[in-house]
């Protein structure tokens, strides 16, 4: 099951650039939360702070508190432990090209030392079913490489890979922006189903997508969280003029 995420006074820097400023918000468990905003507004940096990927850049740093459930991820857990609990899906599908579909899905588990064949088989089937890809690839699991799948299938395989380690939170950074409308629709259907089991945070430039899949939406601008509210409120009657100007295209 997913856990809620509590963010308190989160600040982040790249070198001397203050990219996130005093972010406070609560992301509820087992819901999809969308983050919107113009390029460079800090939404991807924010997501990378939720799984401690931000600090992998040598000139980057972050301060503040991020709690996954009861655990303060910067003080009470290692980056490796956090990345097991927090899966991430990126804009472009990133299969390991030389690995089969099967090996792609269990790569995270193998990294964590799992070797039991029966458990690995079960995990592959469960994860691919959760990612709505099982029926399309079940006969080619070890025959085909992950890179031989279509773009939409590759992205669902990457979702299966993220789910295989049984995370509590799934971060998605523009997961459908490189996909065609049919594949996009499959990813959105998937998000809709997965949020009953996981807490999902999705960064998107597609506001209709945010409106379709997320219960809550946050609008970022210039490193600040301008508004965070129910998606319905944000897209029909936002409180802040800057949010309204952005979503109605009066911005810039």
């Amino acid at each position, binding site marked *: 099951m997913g856990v809620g995420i509590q963010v308190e006074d989160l600040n982040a820097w790249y070198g001397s650039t203050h990219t996130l400023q005093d972010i406070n918000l609560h992301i509820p468990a087992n819901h999809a939360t969308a983050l919107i905003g113009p390029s460079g507004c800090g939404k991807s940096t924010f997501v990378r702070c939720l799984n401690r990927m931000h600090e992998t850049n040598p000139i980057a740093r972050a301060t503040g508190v991020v709690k996954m459930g009861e655990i303060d991820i910067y003080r009470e857990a290692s980056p490796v432990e956090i990345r097991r609990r927090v899966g991430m899906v990126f804009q472009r599908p990133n299969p390991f090209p030389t690995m089969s579909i099967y090996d792609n899905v269990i790569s995270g588990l193998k990294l964590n030392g799992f070797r039991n064949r029966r458990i690995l088989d079960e995990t592959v089937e469960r994860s691919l079913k959760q990612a709505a890809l099982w029926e399309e690839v079940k006969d080619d699991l070890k025959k085909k490489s992950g890179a031989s799948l279509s773009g939409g299938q590759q992205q669902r395989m990457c979702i299966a890979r993220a789910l295989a380690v049984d995370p509590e939170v799934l971060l998605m950074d523009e997961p459908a922006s490189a996909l065609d409308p049919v594949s996009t629709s499959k990813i959105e259907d998937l998000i809709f189903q997965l949020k009953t089991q996981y807490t999902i945070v999705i960064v998107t430039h597609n506001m209709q997508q945010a409106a379709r899949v997320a219960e809550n939406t946050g609008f970022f601008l210039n490193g600040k969280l301008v508004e965070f509210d129910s998606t319905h409120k944000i*897209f*029909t009657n936002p409180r802040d003029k800057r*949010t*309204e100007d952005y979503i109605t*295209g009066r*911005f810039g």
Partner: protein
Amino acid sequence: MRVKFHQSLDELKERLLVMAGMAEQAIQRSIEAYRTRDLSICELVLRSEPAINRLEREIDQMALDLLAMEQPMAIDLRFILSVIRINADLERVGDQAVNIAIRVREMGAFANIDLPVDIPKLAEMASAMVRKALQAFIEGDAEMADSVFDMDDQVDKMNDAAYYALSTLIKEKPELTPQSLNALIIARNLERVGDHATNIAEDVIFWVRGADVRHHAAS
């Protein structure tokens, strides 16, 4: 900046204002026909209806295209939804004008008598409501739209008074029933015009504030 989209919204507003002008003119003409019993004015009202209906469809299509092609959000989405509703109300205002013109034509077959109801005054009040609601729409002024609701109470009272006076007249002088009944229906048509103005005011408030105040709903 979505320049083309916002120009299209301005065009939609302009078309709706043309529709409003046609509906207002139809009501004014129907009352002029009542006042003068001039059947040629009745014909003018009846002939204007197809043009109003055509414009209603045209505006709906423009709004539908914008919804489908531009996928508007927030205040733009509320604006387009309000335009669709106001458009339907204006078409109904045109229908009320046609109904009044038909009644006036029927009254032409009977003696022109003094009735205990001031239809022109009721018409002026209902038309003022429509004008104020449309002014609120033009200026995006929710407070001005609020003031339309008080005017509706006055129109309702005038309609109630007309009903009482005319039904009493029918009882006392049954030979005046045809004229009285037609006047009663015209008063009812004008009361409906006031209701449409109220709807328009509610739509302006929805557009500007995002608040649904229909049926006294608290948003």
